[in-house]
């Protein structure tokens, strides 16, 4: 070939006489599989580097000296390659490999958890010799041993494929398991007393091609053929990993990662994988609870709802709609959140709603900044981290970013008050103690990296709840000033907080990322009258409650006593609010103080959709029945609305999804049908600001739009098969009341908009208006919010010489409801330990490990110290929301920063 020959874009190879197209650089095993020929394998995994350990994938490749046995996972395709995967030589090699693998592998399949879904079992049946000549004693090991508190290892079953050890090193970056020894006595093991304490250890269980690695929460719980499964989305954090929910006897027993390219690549973190245990907890609420005196007693839905109706309508009649507030909503599906947003704004008439608990960022900024996807963040020229520790808060995003650093040379600029899991992978990590965040963006190191960087993406979140969100806004503004083209990926961590904000569960915003002012006419034409003024955020709501100004406070899965940064304020708020109504799956610190507690269904028990941090909407499916009488939040909202004399007009989850697609501008086209289509498999990107830097109309994101378009345009009235609990007897009567835009008109409209294709939304709406129907009277669809961070440059007092500045950040395992009700995860919460730079400890005369009194303007706590070089001088670090007294007791949410003094006892 000469130098001038153009590089081929595809190769043609022949596999078993069949010609298939392959991509240059593609591995033979992958190309063959795409072409329909499955080559058996154990060690090869498409998301990890090939190693050629197991030799199971040997095939004959024709070379200059005739056909040669080659491991197909190790050779890239070449143009014109001729391959035989079924020749007698290949068959003999496969027989030999399996016979050798089974020399030491015990035949305990009947008692092995993997039996029935075991690649070794399956491939022995499909490709193996059927008989073994081996009669000697097999190798023996102690079985099983604990690799960690979550994963057990049976070394006798191990076939040394290197998948778990490669994953731990390559993907997770926690090489805590290794091959030990050599030859026949090679074993996978940890260093003594140094367990495989990786946040990603559960993935090794899923990767294991035999039953060597087992997850303790699943061990001996079910047989694969008893499992029923449905695909869904993880809601443990806001990354939104796709997963399969598997159940047996109407209990979730296992979650498995599903590989979607734009999000999780098949991985799950251990919290997401194992916190399903909570759904099976005996502590789940199964009946409504009503307060009589000092105790909460079980009651019927009728009695409890009557009590709620009386309290809320009484509050509204006597004190006005402004005396009611709704707090929380990040646990909810988009449909639940939409229903509650509609209930609050229309029937209750209040705009005091907030899905965040003072631990996030102002909603209009999260919704209005130019957006980036995870893929864009990983392919940027420079990724700026102005957020909490990704490894602790958004573990799979951490894996993606770490992978991009390792494999594609992504450069990361981290600006953080303390060392994080990303620090060792960052091109530069700038320490910004609270109060200096914005100025750190102008730091020389940061400046040097920012200058000349092409595409810059910033992950923007809250690094420390002990510092006001204003500081993050100032820093984001400084970054926007330095790099005007920067796009943002939200770093807010709560499950469906982005969906809740998108559905308008924040003061001053309406569904689809529009402001109350802009969207008043548009949303009002469907919803009816809306509150006149933007309401209060979480801090405002709790302050108002503490001052006795709130008569009704609804907690939508919110536990302000645990999650709000300022526990003192939360305590006063719950005491000062008139009637507190908690809708939750468990009794939490806050719901124990409520007057009425309504049991809610959680993930796995209800259908709907969820929106991840990049604005990707994916489906949540129902697998099991909610316990007792617990039900989905939207049903509770609909029932309350009808008891309060209103009508939300919802009949099913799909119905709400379609109303969202019709009403919420950023959700155009994300109908229940589109989510069920093949394009919806990876989730659908919401429209709006992803396109801020592109020409053309703001529409749904990227390539998916094409297929959605096709589905919406050609889908001949697809049947919606969202699994849904049968309506409870006290559901609103579907025939009662007629809402202005029913299912059909909204679907028709979305289709019309999609059919409008490249035109402006407004134009599209007009087109659909021309098509007749009631939409003719609708006002123009408003554009989605575009905002810039509000610069406050809030004055931060200098820290006095005796104090340390507090940094409070989240750990993966915390005092959260799901973690604490998952027996496997609860013990992993590290607790409240004050981490301080050794130099400061020495200055204060404290020995590391000693208990000290930690005093802030709020209170004094006794906590244990730990020396940590990752904490800069002048800073005290505490994990937030750990069991027992902790950071929340020390923080004053009204102050820009929190200073603490450490004193020896």
């Amino acid at each position, binding site marked *: 070939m000469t130098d001038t020959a153009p590089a081929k874009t595809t190769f043609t190879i022949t596999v078993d006489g069949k010609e298939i197209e392959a991509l240059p650089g593609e591995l033979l095993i992958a190309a063959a599989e795409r072409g329909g020929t499955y080559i058996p394998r154990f060690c090869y995994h498409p998301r990890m580097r090939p190693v050629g350990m197991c030799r199971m994938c040997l095939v004959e490749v024709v070379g200059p000296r005739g056909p040669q046995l080659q491991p197909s996972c190790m050779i890239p395709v070449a143009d014109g390659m001729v391959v035989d995967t079924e020749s007698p030589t290949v068959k003999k090699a496969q027989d030999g490999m399996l016979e050798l693998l089974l020399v030491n592998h015990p035949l305990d399949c009947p008692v092995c958890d993997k039996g029935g879904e075991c690649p070794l079992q399956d491939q022995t049946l499909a490709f193996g010799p059927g008989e073994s000549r081996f009669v000697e004693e097999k190798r023996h090991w102690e079985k099983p041993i604990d690799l960690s508190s979550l994963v057990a290892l049976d070394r006798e079953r191990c076939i040394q494929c290197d998948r778990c050890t490669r994953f731990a090193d390559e993907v997770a970056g926690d090489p805590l398991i290794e091959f030990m*020894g*050599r030859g026949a006595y090679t074993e996978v093991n940890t*260093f003594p007393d140094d367990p495989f304490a990786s946040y990603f250890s559960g993935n090794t269980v899923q990767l294991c091609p035999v039953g060597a690695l087992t997850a303790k929460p699943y061990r001996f719980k079910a047989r694969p053929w008893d499992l029923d499964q449905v695909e869904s989305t993880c809601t443990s954090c806001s990354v939104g990993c796709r997963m399969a929910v598997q159940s047996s006897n109407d209990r979730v027993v296992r979650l498995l990662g599903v590989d979607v390219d734009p999000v999780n690549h098949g991985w799950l973190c251990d919290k997401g994988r194992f916190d399903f245990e909570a759904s099976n907890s005996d502590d789940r609420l199964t009946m409504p609870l009503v307060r009589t005196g000092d105790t909460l007693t079980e009651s019927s839905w009728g009695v409890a709802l009557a009590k709620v109706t009386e309290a809320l309508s009484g509050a509204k009649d006597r004190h006005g709609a402004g005396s009611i507030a709704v707090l929380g909503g990040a646990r909810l599906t988009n449909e639940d959140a939409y229903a509650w947003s509609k209930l609050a704004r229309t029937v209750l008439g209040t705009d005091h709603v907030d899905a965040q608990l003072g631990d996030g960022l102002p909603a209009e900024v999260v919704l209005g900044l130019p957006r980036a996807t995870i893929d864009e963040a990983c392919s940027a020229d420079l990724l700026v981290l102005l957020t909490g520790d990704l490894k602790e808060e958004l573990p799979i995003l951490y894996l993606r970013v770490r992978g991009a650093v390792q494999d594609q040379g992504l450069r990361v600029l981290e600006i953080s008050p303390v060392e994080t899991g990303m620090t060792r992978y960052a091109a530069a990590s700038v320490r910004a103690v609270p109060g200096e965040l914005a100025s750190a963006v102008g730091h020389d190191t940061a400046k040097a990296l920012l200058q000349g960087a092409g595409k810059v993406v910033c992950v923007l979140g809250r690094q420390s709840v002990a510092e006001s969100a204003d500081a993050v806004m100032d820093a984001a503004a400084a970054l926007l000033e330095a790099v005007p083209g920067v796009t943002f990926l939200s770093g807010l961590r709560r499950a469906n907080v982005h969906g809740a904000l998108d559905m308008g569960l924040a003061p001053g915003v309406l569904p689809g990322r529009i402001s109350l002012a802009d969207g008043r006419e548009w949303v009002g034409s469907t919803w009816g009258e809306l509150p006149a003024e933007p309401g209060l955020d979480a801090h405002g709501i709790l302050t108002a409650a503490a001052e006795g100004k709130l008569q009704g406070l609804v907690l939508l899965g919110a536990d302000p006593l645990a999650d709000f940064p300022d526990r003192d304020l939360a305590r006063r708020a719950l005491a000062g609010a008139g009637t507190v109504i908690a809708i939750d799956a468990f009794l939490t610190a806050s719901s124990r103080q409520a007057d009425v507690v309504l049991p809610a269904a959680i993930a796995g028990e209800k259908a709907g959709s969820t929106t991840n941090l990049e604005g990707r909407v994916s489906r949540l499916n129902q697998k099991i029945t909610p316990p007792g009488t617990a039900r989905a939040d939207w049903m509770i909202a609909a029932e309350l609305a009808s008891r309060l004399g209103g009508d939300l007009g919802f009949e099913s989850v799909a119905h709400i999804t379609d109303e969202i697609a019709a009403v919420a501008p950023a959700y155009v086209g994300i109908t229940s049908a589109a989510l069920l289509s093949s394009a919806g498999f990876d989730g659908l990107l919401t429209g709006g600001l992803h396109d801020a830097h592109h020409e053309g109309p703001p529409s749904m994101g990227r390539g998916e739009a094409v297929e959605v378009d096709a589905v919406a345009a050609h889908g001949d009235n697809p049947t919606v098969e969202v699994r849904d609990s049968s309506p409870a007897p006290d559901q609103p009567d579907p025939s009662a009341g007629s809402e202005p835009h029913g299912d059909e008109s909204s679907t028709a409209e979305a289709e019309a908009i999609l059919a409008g294709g490249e035109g402006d939304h407004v134009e599209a709406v007009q087109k659909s208006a021309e098509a007749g129907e009631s939409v003719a009277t609708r006002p123009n669809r408003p554009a989605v919010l575009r905002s810039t961070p509000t610069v406050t440059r809030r004055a931060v007092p200098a820290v006095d010489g005796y104090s340390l500045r507090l940094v409070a950040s989240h750990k993966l395992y915390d005092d959260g409801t799901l973690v604490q009700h998952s027996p496997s995860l609860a013990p992993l919460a590290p607790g409240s330990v004050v981490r301080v730079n050794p130099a400061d400890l020495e200055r204060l005369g404290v020995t590391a490990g000693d208990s000290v009194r930690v005093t802030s303007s709020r209170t004094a706590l006794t906590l244990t110290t730990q020396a940590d070089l990752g904490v800069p001088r002048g800073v005290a670090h505490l994990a937030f929301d750990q069991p027992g007294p902790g950071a929340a007791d020390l923080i004053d949410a009204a102050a820009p920063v929190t200073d603490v003094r450490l004193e020896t006892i």
Partner: protein
Amino acid sequence: MARLNAQNVERAKAVIRRYPRERSATIPLLHLAQEQDGYITPEAMEHIGELVGATAAEVQGVATFYEMFKHEPVGTYLIGVCTNLSCMILGAEQVLEHTEKVLGIKAGSTTVDGMFTIEEMQCLAACGGAPCLQVNYRYFENVTDERVDGIVDALRNGRDPEGQSIPPHGTLSNITLPAPTTPADRERPEEIHPAPQGVES
């Protein structure tokens, strides 16, 4: 005791500087630890991990792969008797049996005075001189019962057996070379080592 002592930490740092990547120094540092303690202790593996930027598990993976790293105390003199094919045909089993008789221990164990350990070895690549054995990796070829007696006797009495100087087990070579010049960018904290080329599927 078990972590590298101050002097050996300095030597370790000098060794690490010879390599473009710290962890390439793992095996030399394991030798250093074995010289210090006579065998590889868990504490030494942890310490080496800290020095080269690897986890203790990774260091243990390397240390357990190579036969010359011992994980339990061995005698001052490690006698390895080859019993592979060539040696076996020429009487290796008799040599092993005699060595065991002379020292009063079985292969795989150590004399109570801590002087000798016997190991049965796979091929030592000295088939031309079979049967052969090694004392602390120094070769003795065409061995007979009488020569075994002589070697053991010399070692017991502090003499060089057959004129071969044999330092105690674990002793490293005294030959040292100056470390090559450090590349200027070696110490830069922001350096990102390019990962080995992965093949995209």
